[in-house]
């Protein structure tokens, strides 16, 4: 355990650590652009220059700790050098924060205000470069904003291994470019480079110019896209910035999804499917309860369902692998003794979707199969002889394969043709409208929180299970 001094303070470092790591662990911030804990050390931005007494300046990200060294992270010389590095970095940078999506969460902007604050010393014309370069159908590159920290290229070489990005040319006309024959579009992790980019060079086409980031807040959630259960942040408009005159649907929509760093599950990454949760959550919703396709009140629908349950001799439940652990517990508590439960696979891989890899993506495209399997076995190909009532919870059920003549109670959140075929249809809330937990494929439990009001008519499955067991007041 080498002990070092940082700004006069004793810091216990671990052998093999760099000065930057030791400083950050001790709560001493050293600014960086290129350094990232999950990527190899590039040491190219030179922003983390620190002074070692008696040895002069060098970059902290590539400096091994050695016992007794005295590091100064804020000496006058360090400050002067930081200002100079920012002068260099902004030399050809357009400083177009006013039209840049990154503004508000940009390292360059932050560091400029924190460490420089002066106008450019240069009077030379800036080196112009490509403004809207199509890296893929998802990502735009602005080469003028790029500071060549090479986080994105390192990500595609070291993490996603698509080898999709590299540097073309050299010197101050170097540009990030994708390899010709394998577009970045085939990399299912490509959007991580947008988060990795410390400036506004890499932009999400889906988020482009949609909103300023300071109008948004993030709700912690869990991606339901596969059994990995990556923790994510769902970004949506802050309440105080809800729009009234414009399209109010914006108030209840996901503006973007970013990873919520989680060493136990996904590290700092998620796949592109997780970025597109709006595509899953913002599908058309079921309008209200129905009895054989005819609109009904919730009370009438529940009453009919209870009758069917009461009359059934062999009721079976197909339990949603998108249910939360809390919902499973509620089902067990209220209906567990009545129904024979089986785990239903709600979602299967879409055509063209990556099935599985050794980074994050799992073949099971449901978030809580593990939680469900802790209570129930997998659904057999054919339900047992004599099944006369099936409670289908969630999507992915082939109604044609259900036993002929069996009644169906169907709980679903989305508009689907099957909704009208069920004896009783009950609309449910979706993940963004409630809180809960999923258990991922290796047993890690992660929680998601509610960020939107439930859609009109939608009811929490937990409340429905309770009401199905005994008459009670249920609010939609």
């Amino acid at each position, binding site marked *: 355990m080498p002990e070092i001094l940082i700004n006069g303070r004793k810091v216990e470092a671990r052998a093999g650590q760099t000065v930057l790591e030791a400083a950050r662990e001790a709560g001493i911030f050293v600014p960086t652009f290129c350094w990232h804990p999950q990527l190899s*050390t590039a*040491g*190219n*931005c*030179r*922003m983390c*220059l620190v002074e070692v007494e008696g040895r*002069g*300046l*060098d*970059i902290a990200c*590539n400096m*091994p700790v050695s016992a007794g060294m005295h590091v100064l992270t804020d000496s006058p010389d360090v400050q002067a*050098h930081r200002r*100079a*590095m920012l*002068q*260099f*970095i902004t*030399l*050809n940078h357009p400083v177009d924060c006013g039209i840049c999506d990154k503004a508000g969460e940009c390292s360059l902007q932050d560091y400029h205000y924190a460490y420089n604050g002066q106008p450019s*010393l*240069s*009077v*030379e*014309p800036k*080196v112009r470069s490509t403004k809207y370069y199509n890296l893929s159908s998802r990502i735009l590159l602005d080469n003028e904003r790029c*500071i*060549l920290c090479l986080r994105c290229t390192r990500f595609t070489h070291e993490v996603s291994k698509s080898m999709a990005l590299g*540097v073309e*040319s*050299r*010197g*101050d*006309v*170097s540009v990030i470019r994708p390899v010709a024959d394998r577009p970045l579009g085939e990399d299912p992790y490509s959007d991580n480079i947008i988060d990795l980019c410390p400036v506004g060079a890499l932009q999400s086409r889906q988020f482009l110019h949609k909103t300023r980031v300071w109008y948004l807040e993030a709700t912690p959630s869990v991606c339901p896209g596969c059994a990995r259960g990556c923790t994510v942040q769902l970004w949506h408009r802050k309440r105080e910035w809800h729009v009234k005159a414009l399209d109010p649907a914006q108030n209840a929509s996901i503006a973007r999804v970013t990873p919520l760093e989680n060493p136990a599950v996904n590290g700092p990454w998620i796949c592109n499917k997780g970025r597109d949760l709006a595509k899953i959550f913002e599908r058309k919703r079921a309008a209200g309860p129905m009895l054989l396709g005819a609109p009904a009140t919730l009370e009438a629908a529940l009453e009919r369902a209870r009758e069917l349950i009461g009359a059934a001799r062999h009721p079976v439940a197909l339990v949603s692998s998108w249910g939360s652990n809390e919902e499973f517990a509620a089902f067990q508590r209220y209906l567990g003794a009545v129904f024979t439960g089986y785990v239903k696979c709600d979602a299967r891989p879409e055509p063209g979707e990556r099935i599985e890899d050794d980074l994050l993506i799992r073949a099971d495209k449901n978030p809580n199969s593990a939680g469900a399997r802790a209570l129930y076995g997998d659904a057999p190909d054919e339900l047992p002889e004599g099944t006369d009532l099936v409670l289908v919870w969630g999507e992915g059920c082939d109604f044609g394969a259900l036993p002929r003549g069996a009644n169906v109670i169907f709980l679903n959140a989305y508009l689907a043709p099957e909704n009208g075929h069920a004896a009783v249809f009950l609309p449910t809330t979706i993940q963004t409208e409630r809180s809960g937990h999923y258990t991922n494929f290796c047993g890690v439990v992660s929680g998601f929180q509610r960020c939107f009001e439930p859609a009109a008519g939608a009811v929490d499955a937990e409340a429905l299970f309770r009401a199905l067991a005994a008459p009670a007041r249920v609010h939609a």
Partner: protein
Amino acid sequence: MAGRQLLMNFPVTATSHTLAEYRARGGYAAIDRTLRTLKPQDVTQEVLAAGLQGRGGASFPTGRKWQVVVPGDGQPHYLIANADEGEPGTFKDRWILENAPHLLIEGMLLTAYALEARHCFIYIRGEFDLPYRRIAAAVEEAYAAGWLGSRIAGTDFSCDLIVYRGAGAYVAGEASGLIASLEGKKGYPRNRPPRLTVKGLYQRPTVVNNVESLANVTVVMRDGAAAFRTVGTEKSPGTRLISVSGHINRPGVYEVELGFPWRRFIDEDCGGMLGGRALKAIVPGGISSRVLTGADIGPLALSHEALWDVNSTLGSGGMIVIAEGTCMVRLLHIMMRFYHHESCGQCTPCRHGTGWMHRILERIVAGQGRPEDIERLYYIAKYNDGTTICGLGDAAGYAAAGILDKFRDEFEYCIEHKRSRYEGRIECLRS
């Protein structure tokens, strides 16, 4: 002749570069004797005792570099001869490659023996044509004669040598950029630590030595460290190959015994200034070394320590002689165009600093200088010093600060009068 000669001590003829003539001059006797009578560490000790300093530019003691490589550590070691001679004004390794290729090969064998390196490489700049053909032919000759390959000279020592051609990048002459290039990648230099002698080519301990340094290893092992030390000065033993260009009557490569009077070398060996003009300035060791004025060099000897004393360096031995009447603003502009063109673009200060300086100088040369430009150039130079991954950014700053220190008035004149005091003249043709 500028003192005693150790490398160029034979008449160059149409066949003097061949193995047969090299053998006739006593070539490969040193490696033969070393393999039979010495242990690898004896070679390192001898080179340390000789006080041999690197001839590539940094003048780091060659033996000390080797000592970092741990013998018998169970991993392959590599030796690379840096023949990526690209520092403007420098063409002395080219002389060895063309005229004494076996001197280099023998030096590499001796070094490989000392380092326990089974595989060696000569990284030669891609533009070189004749030097490549000569060294490639010499390697084939050496293989055919059993001086390369398995069980050399009937001993247990085996060594393979590959000549690797670059493809046009100054920065690949920097040792870690060279290694990246030899790994088939773009020549981005690498941060230290780790040192290349710990993790170099394909992450294995690697020594990168300049061609002339390796040729001198042959001399040290041929004559012995004691004899080597009798040549040159106490702090700078041996000789340097100096390549002279610019406004001089007899440009070319000269072997100069270290400690030889500089002015005499210019006036006698090099035939004096072109057109009998006065000596205005000298770039002593490639454009990355700080320029000196004619007055500076008057009393100086050519040695590492003498140059260090005046805050410059013998560097790569690329000496550019500049006559009175030359516009230093234009000269610095051309130098900066070069650094800007060759910056790899990897690290911030050099990527932007070289271009920034180049554009400022372009403006001054075009008669649009501003009073603050000089301070701005100093500022950029200052914040490239010690802040970059490799030495290219520093060197660009040294070149700028060096010329500004000595010839600031020329820049001020050019900025104030919107034109060069010397009408931007840089050439001085044969009269």
